[in-house]
Every structure is written in structure tokens, then in C-alpha cells.
């Protein structure tokens, strides 16, 4: 089976030759390829090259077109600060509660900020791996984009103080995300990973998810499917136990669960949805290959009967992780051959 076939079959809960394994790697690939983080997040070609270098070495089942959580907000006009070895951060938000958001320009993925670099990265990745390996396009989810457009506290206070106005801002974020995701599908991504950590229970209560986020996630996933995505993948880092039941109503195909979520709870709360997770991200820095192997085997054991499981980390594997720990996770999946 090719990686893409393995993932597709797993999403449909069909049998595979082995458990698929995806190392969620962003800038780690750059460090691995002896490049600088600051260059990785600004250069689609370099990012694609780094991703391919890491893929060839580790041999997992997917590559990512991903930079950081500022791409969308920068393209919409926020000011970003870049640093040598750490991911960039917003230093000036483009929107505030008084902004006339309905008149605010939507970024053009082919022109604005670093969006064109992400598209370039997608194109090169697809050219390089074709239909052998899953090419994952990524968007920051609408809730998180909104917090990146105006600041987390302001966005949350607005939702409470003036929900009608909040919805207008939220819908702007949704349109922005929709466009960017569709452009990546057009450029050749097999699917879009919607990374929406601000839509986790760590930040918002489950009722908030149900009322505001759920209908918008559902709409977004529908649009991506119509745009050619082979599946939809949602990722909200942190705790999601009480939000997971709502995922079923969004028609999402793959749900990431972080290390804080018990795999049994994930199974109980998601029904017939493929899951990926959940090795502790920091383990890849501090623990040994044997610990990672044991964790991996334990997880695959839990999912053996159920299927619909992709072995992965709970969240991004930190850039400074030890390569032998990532190898240990990939090798553990191979043991199931």
C-alpha cells in the first residue's frame, strides 16, 4: 500500500497493511535539513525541501505545508515579528472591536503576505510525492484566526458583550480561511488540516463551541470537500473531551486528540470518526526512543479492534525534538506490518 492508500483506507475504517503514522512536523524538518526556522517560515520552496528531506529520512505517511499561526492574520494586515529560532508572533493586530469588519479586505491567497509561499510549498510537495504520500495543506481554524486578527481577550470579551457583532467578525475569519484552504486544494493538497487550538475547551466552553463554532466548522468542511479534499481533518490542541461529541455533527473525517485526552474518552466521544494522536509532544525532546516505542505500542493496542487510527503526536512535534525519538514512533508502526 502507498501512504495515501493507507491513510484513505484508515479513514474509511478498512484494513491496512500496517497502522499509518504521521509525525506532525513543521519547523523540525528545517532544523533536520540544517536550515533556519526564520527561513523555513518565509520560503515555500525551502519549506517543501525541508519537508521532503525529513520524509525521506523518517518514512512516515504525510507531508505538511505549514509555517506558523500568523500566516492568515499577516495576509489580512497584522504586523508580525520574525525571530531566528522561534515561530513569529503578532505585534500589532489589524482589527479591533470598533473596526468596520464588513468592509475589511479579504486577503488574496495568491498575493498577500506569505500565503503565496504556502501555495508554492503545496505545489512542490505534490509534484515531489504525487499520489504516494498524503500532502496536507493547513489552515488556522476560524476561531483561532479571529483571535489572531484582534487578540484573544478582545475576541472572547466581544463574544460575551456583543454576540451579534462577534458573529460578523467571526464570519470574516471564516471567509478568509475558506479562501485560503480552497487555494491550497487547487494547488494540489489532498486535504486540509484545520488547526483551531482556540476552539478547544482549554479556551472556550463546550456550549460556546456548539453555538458559534460548530455550524462554521461544518460549513467549512463541506466547502473543502466540494473543493476536492479527500477528507477533512480537525485539530484543536489541548482538552476537547466535551467538544468531541459535536464533531460528529460537523461531518469531519479525522479528529486529532492531544496528550491530555484519554484515548478511551476519544473513542467514546467520536463514534465512527478516524482519530489521530496522542503522544506527548515534549516526550520527543525529553524521553528516550524506548519510551516513545512503548507509548506507540500501547496506543496501537488500544485501537487494534476499533481501527480508524493514525499513530501520531498529540500536537506539533517541537522543532528541537530528538530525531531518534521520531524514528522510534515510525518504527513502532512498522512493527505492526
Amino acid at each position, binding site marked *: 500500500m502507498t501512504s495515501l492508500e493507507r491513510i484513505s483506507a484508515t479513514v474509511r475504517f478498512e484494513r491496512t497493511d500496517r497502522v499509518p503514522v504521521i509525525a506532525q512536523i513543521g519547523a523540525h524538518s528545517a532544523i533536520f535539513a540544517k536550515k533556519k526556522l526564520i527561513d523555513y517560515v518565509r520560503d515555500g520552496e525551502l519549506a517543501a525541501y525541508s519537508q521532503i528531506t525529513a520524509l525521506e529520512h523518517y518514512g512516515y505517511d504525510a507531508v505538511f505545508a505549514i509555517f506558523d499561526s500568523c500566516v492568515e492574520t499577516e495576509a489580512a494586515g497584522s504586523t508580525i515579528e520574525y525571530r531566528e529560532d522561534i515561530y513569529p508572533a503578532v505585534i500589532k493586530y489589524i482589527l479591533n472591536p470598533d473596526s468596520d469588519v464588513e468592509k475589511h479586505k479579504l486577503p488574496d491567497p495568491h498575493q498577500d503576505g506569505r500565503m503565496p509561499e504556502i501555495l508554492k510549498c503545496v505545489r512542490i510537495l505534490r509534484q515531489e510525492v504525487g499520489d504516494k504520500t498524503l500532502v496536507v495543506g493547513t489552515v488556522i481554524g476560524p476561531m483561532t484566526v479571529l483571535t489572531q486578527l484582534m487578540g484573544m*481577550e478582545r475576541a*472572547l*470579551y466581544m463574544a*460575551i458583550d456583543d454576540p451579534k457583532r462577534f458573529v460578523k467578525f467571526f464570519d470574516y475569519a471564516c471567509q478568509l480561511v475558506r479562501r485560503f484552504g480552497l487555494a491550497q486544494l487547487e494547488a494540489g493538497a489532498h486535504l486540509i488540516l484545520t488547526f483551531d487550538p482556540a476552539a478547544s475547551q*482549554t479556551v*472556550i*466552553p463546550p456550549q460556546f463551541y456548539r453555538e458559534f463554532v460548530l455550524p462554521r466548522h461544518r460549513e467549512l468542511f463541506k466547502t473543502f470537500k466540494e473543493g476536492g479534499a479527500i477528507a477533512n481533518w480537525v485539530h484543536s490542541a489541548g482538552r476537547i473531551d466535551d467538544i468531541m461529541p459535536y464533531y460528529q455533527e460537523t461531518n469531519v473525517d479525522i479528529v486529532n486528540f492531544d496528550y491530555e485526552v484519554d484515548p478511551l474518552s476519544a473513542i467514546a466521544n467520536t463514534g465512527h470518526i478516524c482519530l489521530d494522536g496522542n503522544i506527548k*509532544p515534549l516526550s520527543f*525532546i525529553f524521553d528516550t526512543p524506548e519510551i516513545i516505542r512503548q507509548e506507540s505500542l500501547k496506543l496501537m493496542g488500544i485501537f487494534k479492534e476499533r481501527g480508524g487510527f493514525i499513530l501520531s503526536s498529540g500536537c506539533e512535534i517541537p522543532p528541537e525534538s530528538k530525531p531518534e525519538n521520531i524514528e522510534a514512533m515510525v518504527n513502532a508502526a512498522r512493527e505492526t506490518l
Partner: protein
Amino acid sequence: MQNNPYQSLIDALIDGDRDKAYQSASELLKSGIPKERIVVEGIHKAMEMLDGKCTAEQFNLLELMLTGRAVSTVIDLLYKGDQSGVASRETIVLAALEGDIHDLGKSIVKTVLMGKGYRTVDCGKDVTIEKIVETAKKEGAKAICISGLISSVMPQIKRLKPSLEEAGCGDIAVLAGGAALKQATAEVLNVDYVGITAFDAGKYIDTLLGYSHDQS
């Protein structure tokens, strides 16, 4: 309980309703109650009740943020933003380290500590170890709370205790917490304590400084 004149303020703070909290506090002031009583019987009580309500599993950030905002509104009303009138306890310094711009968790820790009556000095986010040591020394802090959400701050926090010792203030306690740091142990981070929630920080400091935290 029904006749507790502070009840409507306490309720408003717990509900995170800042308008109602402002109104209740104004009425208390007008009826001649001293500011200090409003702080102790209103704000401190509300924070104690929240402490009991929030555990690592049952934790609602939004609720806490709204309470934090309501508390600030009342403090502004009472002291025109000058915290020193509220703080009857020792000084605690807070910071997020260089390269880390997450600060929601730090604000919550601050709210909890302020609610308990500590004087807090917030160095902000993206702060160097040198700046933290300097501030802690200058302010005569008893403890430093480091909130760390990204793993890249780990090498930095390990340097904090040695730097404090070098500066001659090795007796200041160092606490760590936040999404990244809470995954590690105190030994690995070279700190005195690693806590999961903001209330853990409050409890550890209470015990350290000899306040019992079960008075409610």
C-alpha cells in the same frame, strides 16, 4: 447568609458581570463601608469560592477571564487602578519568558494571586531572565511565577534559579506552569514547584508563606 451585604457583589464577581459588580461596589462605598472591607469580604471571598469550584478538569477560562475583568473594574473604582491599597500580602513577580507571547494563563494566575491579597508585579510576556531577576530583587519578591506555553523556553527557565543565586536572592521561590512547562517535572526545570492550574500557584504560595488556604 441572606443578609450578607456583600452577597450581591460576590455573586456579580463570580458571574463575571462587571456592570453589576461596579454597581454593587458603588453602593457599598456609598453606605460608608471602608474599601478594605469591600476587598476582603467581597473580592477575596469571591476568589475563594471560585477556587473551590475550579479543578483541573472543571475549568472554564472564559468564566475566570470575566471574573478577572470584573475584579479589575471594582479595584479601579476603589483605588483608581492603584493595586497597593488592595494588597496586604507579599510581592509575587510574574512573567512569560523570551519568545513566548502567550499570556492568558499568566493573567489568570495574577487574578488568583491578587484575589488572595498578594501584591503582584507583572513583567509581561517575552521577558529575559535578567529582567526578571532584576525586577524580583528590586520589588522584594518572595516568589516568581513563570508561565511557559512553548517548549523553547525550557532552557531559559533552568537558568532562573542559578541567576537568582548569583544576584544574591536565591531564597526567592520559583514556580512554573502553563501548557509546556506543566509537562515537565520540577527537577528537569530546576524550579521549586510545577503546578497544573492557577489555583495550584496560589495554594503553593499560601503554604510557603504560612497562610492557610482553607479558611473559607
